[in-house]
């Protein structure tokens, strides 16, 4: 295979060799099958075990008083009435908390100091001002109302462009600099000036992506127990960073990692929002230690909308795309202003992420990004399905459509002309990331086929003739999967890049009990995906045994190894790697033992139908159970040597399959998100210009996530992700007014799509281009739908309204916005 590597990147040894051990094949027994989920029976019968279901003996309950001001100094807090209320155990202000607990963990450089309860100053509506622990949540909330806070209002900064030049009291974090500009730097990859000089045409657009968020139906919570005798915390939490960086919360609390045990629970949806809920974890543990009893704190909905860790990207783009007359795209240049809100959690990682697929699926030779990160009086950003790349996908697709319109080209034609071709992989893009494999034209062909595009065009023509506004939209987008931690810090100042993680591994432990049942311990929790089903299918494949013989359990921090957890569409790839590693170790030992039992050479044996048998000799075999009981209890019948020691257990830590470091001068960022999925989304919509209503008449989503482990659950992710993409494109918006009040703080106002906002169905297709770098060739697919739908819908609405000449530059496309666009053209 010959890699495509752009000239500004040193080609020699740039792509490390593949470490793939399980080569993709076509005849799996368990992988690729629509297996019903292992997780479901308990979830269907009300036995989910979510965070609010955890009840410890003597447990107390916390509530939080939150700021109703967007920006103010805290002059005085009087807690006396609250503390005197019967049933109240503890009232804690920021000053109190700061005495025992340090700043919360975060990954920005330079850091932004944030406490689990605000100290001296509040910086957004909803920020914690005081917390109460009481015998019941009802009493705790009563007590919050009895706390008197005296504020001195400060200037409120809401407009991200104005934030760049804020001065004086309007500056949120004066210790970080004289304005609310958090960070500004230009990154240039490849010959940008040359490419723009060569262009026949440069199209320019200003684009606005509004903040939305995962808003799972279950909010973030924790139950913390502190034992003063051991100085140890046990904390139940719906976080997925249990065995990754959860220990950083221990650091905030002033205890070493081994004294902070995180216990995973079933999570009621995350979509990125529960990666690392540092505020809830740190606060709950702080309260438990202070009051000497186990404490439960669960965000209520308004706690969550106003002060969660997961508002998504909030960006303003000014973009230029350089093209030749024939539609060839040469280069992309943009400035992006991102409104990070009042604090930073993952630094500028959402832009590190975006740069891994910044040319989309297209052969774009050079890219320049000026990143302008600002801080305003809004809730901080965290992760939301796509982690910033869903926004660049939308931006790229908008620019490609703008190019097509300027050249009067068909949107499909301009895309096909610029798609990276199947023989060009592995393909290194200007930012340095690798696209491992793909067949983009095949994905578009499949989408066009499923949609029956000619039929759609007929519906559109007929509708237009009758005066209806019907439009067709296409988006061809990337879905990078399997993040490397370099994305979190590669954009940080190079003289002080901060917390430079380079490894984000995943681990597992597999044990086979004396009856032959295979128990798999996952280091990462369930958060709404299908980790047990995936692991079961892969283990069944490895041992050629029935999935009913596989049992999945979850490790807490006490027992788990390095495991990053779900996020960045990494889990299926990474847990497959860990399972393959552990299974190979275990199988080697089992073959050795079975060889003694069957008086055969291990190399002549195979795993088949729950047994280990001599190849080509039916009946010459032992069941896994027979081998297991022998391995556990009949040690003395086996030769000396550790390779025959009692029991069957193996652990394995699987490191990232393909990642390299960024260049010191950041002329490229190395390989950091290479397992590249792809999608083509097609939307057929009707817009009512008189009301602004948008109806999705038909929708097709074809994805390539490499080898598919379970087509049914992958389709579930695609449909659910698309639903969220529809929400982001048409309905959802965390809308702050000029005073910094969040006007969409409940699900009454923050519009999650219901069934009525969805198309009757999303027709899903799969194309499989296995990765040459991962076990079995699996790629991630967890975020996909949300990363394609906004582009396809924006174009479809633009196309529908083409009689009005409307351009779609801002989301969400609410009826009000659509009406305003139409009205402006009617004048």
């Amino acid at each position, binding site marked *: 295979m010959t890699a495509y590597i752009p000239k500004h990147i040193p080609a020699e040894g740039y792509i490390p060799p593949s470490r793939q051990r399980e080569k993709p094949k076509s005849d799996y027994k368990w992988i690729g099958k629509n297996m019903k989920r292992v997780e479901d029976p308990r979830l269907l019968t009300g036995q989910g075990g979510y965070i609010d279901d955890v009840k410890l003996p003597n447990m107390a309950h916390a509530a939080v008083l939150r700021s109703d001001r967007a920006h103010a100094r805290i002059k005085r807090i009087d807690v006396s009435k609250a503390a005197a209320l019967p049933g109240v155990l503890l009232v804690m202000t920021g000053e109190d908390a700061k005495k025992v607990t340090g700043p919360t963990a975060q990954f920005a450089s330079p850091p932004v100091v944030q406490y689990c309860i605000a100290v001296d100053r509040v910086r957004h509506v909803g920020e914690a001002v005081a917390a109460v622990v009481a015998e019941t949540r009802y009493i705790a909330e009563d007590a919050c109302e009895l706390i008197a806070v005296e504020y001195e209002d400060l200037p409120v900064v809401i407009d991200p462009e104005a934030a760049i030049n804020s001065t004086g009291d309007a500056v949120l974090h004066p210790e970080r600099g004289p304005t609310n500009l958090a960070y500004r730097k230009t990154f240039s990859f490849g010959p940008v000036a040359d490419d723009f000089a060569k262009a026949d045409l440069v199209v320019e657009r200003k684009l606005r992506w509004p903040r939305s968020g995962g808003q799972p139906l279950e909010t973030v919570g924790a139950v913390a127990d502190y034992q003063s005798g051991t100085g140890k915390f046990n904390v139940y939490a719906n976080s997925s960073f249990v065995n990754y960086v959860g220990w950083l919360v221990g650091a905030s609390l002033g205890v070493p990692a081994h004294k902070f045990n995180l216990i995973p629970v079933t999570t009621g949806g995350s979509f990125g929002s529960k990666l690392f809920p540092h505020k809830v974890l740190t606060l709950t543990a702080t309260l438990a230690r202070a009051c000497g009893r186990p404490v439960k704190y669960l965000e209520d909905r308004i706690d969550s909308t106003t002060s969660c860790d997961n508002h998504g990207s909030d960006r303003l783009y000014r973009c230029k795309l350089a093209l030749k007359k024939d539609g060839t795209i040469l280069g992309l240049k943009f400035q992006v202003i991102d409104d990070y809100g009042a604090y930073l959690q993952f630094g500028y990682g959402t832009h590190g992420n975006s740069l891994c697929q910044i040319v989309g699926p297209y052969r774009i030779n050079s890219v320049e990004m000026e990143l302008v990160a600002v801080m305003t009086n809004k809730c901080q950003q965290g992760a939301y399905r796509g982690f910033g790349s869903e926004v660049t996908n939308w931006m790229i697709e908008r620019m490609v459509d703008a190019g097509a319109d300027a050249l009067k080209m068909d949107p499909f034609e301009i895309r096909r002309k610029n798609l990276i071709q199947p023989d060009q992989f592995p393909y290194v893009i200007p930012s340095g990331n690798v696209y491992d494999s793909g067949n983009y034209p095949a994905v578009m062909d499949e989408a066009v086929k499923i949609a029956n595009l000619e039929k759609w065009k007929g519906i559109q023509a007929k509708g237009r003739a009758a005066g209806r506004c019907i439009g067709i939209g296409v988006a061809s987008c990337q879905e990078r999967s399997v993040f490397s931690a370099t994305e979190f810090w590669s954009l940080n100042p190079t003289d002080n890049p901060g917390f430079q993680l380079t490894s984000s591994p995943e681990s597992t432990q597999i044990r086979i009990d004396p009856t032959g049942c295979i128990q798999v311990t996952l280091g990462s929790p369930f958060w709404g995906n299908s980790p047990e089903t995936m692991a079961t299918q892969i283990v069944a494949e490895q041992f050629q045994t029935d999935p009913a013989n596989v049992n999945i359990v979850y490790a807490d921090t006490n027992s788990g190894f390095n495991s990053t957890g779900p996020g960045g569409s990494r889990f299926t790839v990474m847990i497959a790697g860990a399972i393959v590693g552990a299974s190979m170790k275990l199988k080697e030992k089992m073959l050795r033992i079975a060889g003694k039992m069957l008086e055969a050479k291990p190399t002549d044996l195979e795993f088949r139908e729950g047994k280990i048998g001599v190849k080509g000799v039916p009946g010459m075999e032992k069941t896994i159970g027979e081998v297991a009981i022998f391995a556990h209890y009949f040690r003395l019948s086996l030769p000396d040597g550790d390779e025959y020691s009692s029991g069957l257990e193996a652990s394995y830590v699987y490191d990232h399959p393909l990642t390299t470091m960024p260049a010191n001068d950041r002329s490229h960022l190395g390989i950091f998100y290479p397992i590249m999925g792809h999608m083509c989304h097609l939307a057929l919509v009707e817009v009512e210009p008189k009301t602004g209503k948008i109806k999705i008449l038909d929708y097709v989503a074809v994805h390539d996530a490499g080898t598919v482990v379970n087509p049914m659950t992958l389709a579930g992710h695609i449909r659910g992700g698309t639903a969220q993409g529809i929400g982001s494109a048409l309905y959802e918006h965390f809308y702050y007014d000029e005073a910094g009040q969040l006007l969409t703080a409940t699900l009454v106002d923050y519009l999650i799509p219901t069934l009525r906002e*969805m198309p009757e169905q999303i027709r899903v297709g799969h194309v499989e281009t296995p990765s040459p770098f991962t076990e079995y060739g699996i790629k991630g697919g967890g975020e996909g739908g949300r990363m394609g739908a906004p582009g396809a819908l924006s174009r479809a609405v633009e196309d529908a309204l083409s009689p009005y000449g409307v351009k779609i530059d801002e989301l969400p496309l609410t009826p009000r916005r659509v009406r305003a666009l139409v009205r402006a053209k009617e004048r």
Partner: protein
Amino acid sequence: MSKSVTVNVRVNGKAYTRTVEPRMLLSDFLREELELKGTHVGCEHGVCGTCTVLLDGQSARSCLLFAAQIDGAEVRTVEGLAQNGAMSPLQQAFWEKHGLQCGFCTPGMLMVATELLERNPNPSLEEIREAVSSNLCRCTGYYNIVEAVQAAVALSKEARK
């Protein structure tokens, strides 16, 4: 206002008597007083339907009711759907059709669908869509939930044969 009130209810066929604060929500009553953790609370404003239970056969948002309001009522929750350890046809169909991911909205979805199927064992697609549209799901995009209810209709017909 009295500081406490006695509530007599039958939940999933079993009688309970509890003395609680008049302001205790039905959702908290079920979860905290009766230890029935299957009913979940999502939005607390009656929007999402996650907390839906059946009250004398009719679906109701348990986050918008006080326990005191249901004295004497018959309540059914997700815990009452499986009989003798066997999931109901509706639960089986949700499993079969991948009608859930994180499972948090699922108890509410099961209760609105149970209400529909008890009133109308043979609903049209539009009737199913109407019932499901009352609740939010953030994971699935709803399509598989509708399919699951359709499959449950078929399973129930099969069982009645």
